[in-house]
Structures are given as C-alpha cells and as structure tokens.
C-alpha cells in the first residue's frame, strides 16, 4: 500500500541530518525573530494607541482594530501554514512538517481567540452587544472550533505520529471546507439580517491608520514564527529525551 521506492540508504541519512540542521538554523534565527517581534509590536502599538487619529465615526474604539484585524489575518495565515505542512507530511512524510503543524495549531487557535475577543470588545460599544451573529465573526468562530478539533485530535493518540497524521488529514479536509463554510455563513447572514452591520475594516483606509496596521501585522507574523520555532525545538528535544529513556530502559 505504500511507496517503498524511497532511496534505501538516503532516507536514513536524511532523517538523521535534517533535525540537527533544523535545530542549528532555528537557533540562529531565534534572536532575529524575537527582535523583530518586540520592535514591530512596540512601534506598532505606539502608533496604534498614540500616533494615529481616532475614527470620526467610531471614536477611540477604532484602536481595537489594530489588534483585531492582524489577529484575524493571522488566524487564516496560520491555518494556511498548517495546511501546507499537513500536505507535505502526508505526501513526503517529512517528520518536521508534522511538528510544524502540531506547534502551529495552538498559536492559530490563540490568534483566532484574540480576533473573537477583540471583536466582541469592539462590538459592545458599537452594536450594543457582546456577540452579534455577524458573517465574519461567525466564520471566525467556526474556524476556532476547527482549530480546537485539530489540537484535540493531535493529542488524542498514544503515538504522537498517528495524532499528527490524523490531524493532517483533518486540516486538509478543513481547507476544502473553509471556503464553503465562509460562503454558506455569509449567505445565511444576509438572509437573516439585511446588511445593517458595519464592517470593522472598510475598503478605504487612511495611510495614518494603514501603517500601524501593517506594522502590527508584521509583529504578529514575527511572533508566530518565533514561538512556532521554539515549540518545534521543544518537540524535538522531547523526542530526543524519549529516545534516550528508551535506551536506558532497554539496557542496551
């Protein structure tokens, strides 16, 4: 049932070499990513809170947008990363891809939760309610459940490998479904409440607001890459530890 046509000697070597190389590479990237995160979030937050004007309609609440919109972008971006990692895990069986997907899922869920929470905080003064069944918010909520499913499935098995591969299949099924879910929810939304809801991020945006938004988005991306690599390194070290424990118990 499987392709055994892999180069027999090369695959062993490849498996061995790549985590070590990865650890070195990730280690040298770490300070840059950490620096980028702190710099971008620092500058971005200053511009968002002090350096940009209040909105003529929304007032000071518009500043929530500088966290909400990048978080929502990241929610989708991280899912895309998970889907790509999942595809490479299933097709090329690269063990690193499984670890990347596993490390990314809780981060994506956190970004999604941040988008939901800030959306809700923004909704209270604007809509007068903590939760509005708005099309976008509803789609993000479903995305959040998808993330929870991925996390739960990854951790539901004795063998970490099986959990990673099962959730890789789920991630790919989710990718096919996301556009359908988005379409159906938007459609359901317009059906039930005719466009009374104002969009949080309008199509036109002033440069004085766009720059802090983009800098914040860059900061979020750096943060994701930084913590994701950290988590992958942790997983690798844990796997190494398990291997050493096995060596110990087997008395060889």
């Amino acid at each position, binding site marked *: 049932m499987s392709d055994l046509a892999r180069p027999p000697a090369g695959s062993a070597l490849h498996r061995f070499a790549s985590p070590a190389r990865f650890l070195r590479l990730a280690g040298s990237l770490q300070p840059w990513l950490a620096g980028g995160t702190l710099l971008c979030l620092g500058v971005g937050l200053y511009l968002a809170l002090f350096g940009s004007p209040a909105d003529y309609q929304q007032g000071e609440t518009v500043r929530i947008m500088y966290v909400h919109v990048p978080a929502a972008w990241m929610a989708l971006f991280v899912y895309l990363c998970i889907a790509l990692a999942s595809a490479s895990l299933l097709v090329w069986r690269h063990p690193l891809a499984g670890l990347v997907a596993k490390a990314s899922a809780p981060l994506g869920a956190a970004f999604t939760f941040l988008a939901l929470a800030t959306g809700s905080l923004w909704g209270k003064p604007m809509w007068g309610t903590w939760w509005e069944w708005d099309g976008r918010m509803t789609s993000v909520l479903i995305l959040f459940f998808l993330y929870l499913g991925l996390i*739960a499935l990854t951790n539901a098995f004795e063998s970490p490998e099986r959990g990673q591969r099962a959730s890789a299949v789920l991630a790919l099924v989710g990718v096919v479904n996301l556009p359908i879910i988005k379409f159906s929810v938007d459609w359901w939304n317009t059906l039930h409440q005719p466009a009374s809801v104002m969009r949080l991020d309008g199509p036109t945006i002033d440069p004085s607001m766009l720059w802090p938004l983009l800098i914040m988005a860059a900061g979020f991306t750096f943060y994701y890459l930084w913590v994701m690599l950290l988590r992958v390194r942790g997983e690798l070290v844990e796997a190494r530890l398990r291997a050493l424990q096995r060596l110990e118990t087997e008395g060889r």
Partner: protein
Amino acid sequence: MVSRAREQGPPQAGPSVTTALSALVRRDLRLALRQRGDLLTAVLFFLLTAALFPFGIGPEPNLLLRIAPGILWVTALLAVLLSLERLFLADGEDGSLDLLLVSPLPLELAVLGKVLVHWLSSGLPILLSTPLAALLYGLPAEALPVLLLALALGTPTLSLLGATAAALTLGARRGGVLLPLLTMPLYVPVVIFGVAAVDASLAGLSARPHLLLLAALLAAALPVAALAGAAALRQAAE
C-alpha cells in the same frame, strides 16, 4: 495518502471489485439488521428529541412552525452523529479492518460502501419518520416534500463527512467527545442550506437553489470522504 491513492492507478475494475463491494454492503446490512437495537437508536433519538422541544418552548403553534425547520435539522444531525462513532469501531477492534486493507478492494470504495450502509441504517429511517416529527410542529403539507428532499440530499453528506471524522478518531482516547468537535464545523453548511430550503418553501419561495446547493455539497463530499476516510483508515491500521 491522498496522492498515493492516485499513484495506485485505476484499480483492476471488473467483476471482482463489484463482487467484493456488494459483499461488504450486504454483510454490513445483515449486521445492522441482526442488531436491530442499533438500527432503532437513531430514529428514537430523533423522534424523542423533536418531541421534547415543544416542552421547552411552549405549545404556541406559530412559534413552533417558525423554529421547526431548524429543530428538525439539528435533531436529525445529532441522531446521525450518535450512530457514527460505531461506524468503524467494531471492524477496527476485531481485526476486520486489517483484512479489509489487505483485500484487493480499493479502500476508497470500501469507505463509500460502509457510508452507504450507515445512511441506510440511520439517515433513511430518520427520513421515513420525518413526516411524524413534522406533524408535531404543524408543518404544512406543502413544505413536507421540500423538507424530505432536503434531508434526502443532506443526510448522506452528514454520513460522509462524519465517516471521515469517525475514521480519524479510530483508536483515539476520548473518541466520543472528539467526534462532535470534528464534525461540527463541517456540518454548518449542510444545516444552513437544509434549513433555508424549508424556510423558503414556508415563505412561498422556490427552494430549488438551496436544494441544488445541498446536491453540490453531496457531490463534493463524496470524493473528499472517500479519499480522506481511506487515508485515515490506513493510518489507523499502522
């Protein structure tokens, strides 16, 4: 995995594949019929839950009619979900799954065969008992055919996507909690279009676009469930 199925090339189609697939479907049907308790679970759950809602909401006919499409769809969904967990469980536990994987029958077809039996033993009985449940909510006779058609198009999709989730959670700890969590996001479009179809016909509008969308979802779910379900079962046997 997904790509590997393609690499295998066309399965040696022909009499032996048909024989094998019909043998699988017939055996699973026979198992379902001999374990009648399982067969009744889904229908009973559907009817009992549907009958319970008016107690929570009050017997006001207009209100009941207003929420009937949503209630009937969600209870049908939960009833399907209830029977999904066992879909591959017995085969996984008694070693039948191994023999299924070792047999020349392409696993993708085997998954579709098992989904067919699951639908026949859960979706179809729900569909047949729907007129009874619709009666409880005073659904007008004109809307009933649309509801039945929507369920006929939608419940197979629920079985297909649910089968993928059931295959993925095979052998998992807490499999029973996982299943609703995994299926819920995937089921949202089916419920939306299924309810919209009935709502449209209650409002005197054409339900055709919604029914076509439900048919499109079913058509999309067929290959997704076959490929993903087979991939998941291979993983479960490893």
